[in-house]
């Protein structure tokens, strides 16, 4: 029962974790705007989220049942075994890519500060959105738990 309650929050939690990670990546770009030979980096949020949640939909139901728990799940060979989630797919460190389409300046730096600032602002809002989704879920659960006492 309790794992069903937390499962529904798992998706938002993963999204929040990846938003925090992307915030760090964008900070890396912004703080290296004057560093010679630094190349701007980023990762594809959608792909990273798919890898982290094993393609689960927002309500905890697998979008593709055959991928259910992701590639890193434990094998179940006995009915007493628990499945475990594992760390499905690639980690975000492996998904980091150099940003394309930017021409490097004469010092070899390819950070476009306007673009990075815009991405940073966007990511901040989306982080708060993920946080709000979790908060909404928590308050729904709290309300459901307390309804008998009134």
């Amino acid at each position, binding site marked *: 029962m309790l794992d069903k309650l937390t499962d529904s929050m798992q998706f938002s939690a993963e999204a929040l974790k990846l938003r*925090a990670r992307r915030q*760090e990546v964008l900070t890396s770009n*912004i703080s290296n705007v004057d560093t*010679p030979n630094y190349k701007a980096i980023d990762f594809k949020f959608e792909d990273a989220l798919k890898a982290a949640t094993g393609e689960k939909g927002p309500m905890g139901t697998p979008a593709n049942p055959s991928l259910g728990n992701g590639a890193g799940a434990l094998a179940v060979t006995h009915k007493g075994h628990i499945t475990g989630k594992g760390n499905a797919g690639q980690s975000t460190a492996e998904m980091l890519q150099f940003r394309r389409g930017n021409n490097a300046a004469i010092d070899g730096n390819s950070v476009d500060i306007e673009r990075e600032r815009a991405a940073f602002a966007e990511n901040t809002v989306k982080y708060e959105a993920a946080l709000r989704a979790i908060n909404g879920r928590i308050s729904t659960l709290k309300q459901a738990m307390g309804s008998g006492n009134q």
Partner: protein
Amino acid sequence: MSLFNSFKLAGGAMQAQTTRLNTVASNLANVDTAAAKPNEVYQARKVVFEAVLQKAAPGKAALAENVQVKDIVEDKTEAKKMFDPKHPMADEDGYVYMPNVNAVEEMVDMLAASRSYQTNAEVMNTAKQLMLKTLNMGNQ
């Protein structure tokens, strides 16, 4: 918690930009420091930044974990030779040597450093606000 790394990163960048600003101040302060010999004259200084990258496979994209000043290099262009026989530092031919500092260039560098500093301060502030909101999770 990856948001904590943002503090270190933005803080390191702010420190590096402060060093750059100090260098600009040094250059501007010495813009009129004359010398009697060409090898004694003040030379403009420039900072070179360096990113400390996290470990990754060679050729792969890696995240920076800090920004630091790698080196402060001196501008090797020739000193300005000025004919001024009345100057106390003038040599026997009446010449004094002035630093190769370009005041306009230094002012531009100063503005760029201050803007980068501001940007990093904003990044740090945003990270702080996000973390405080995260701490408040479930308390609404």
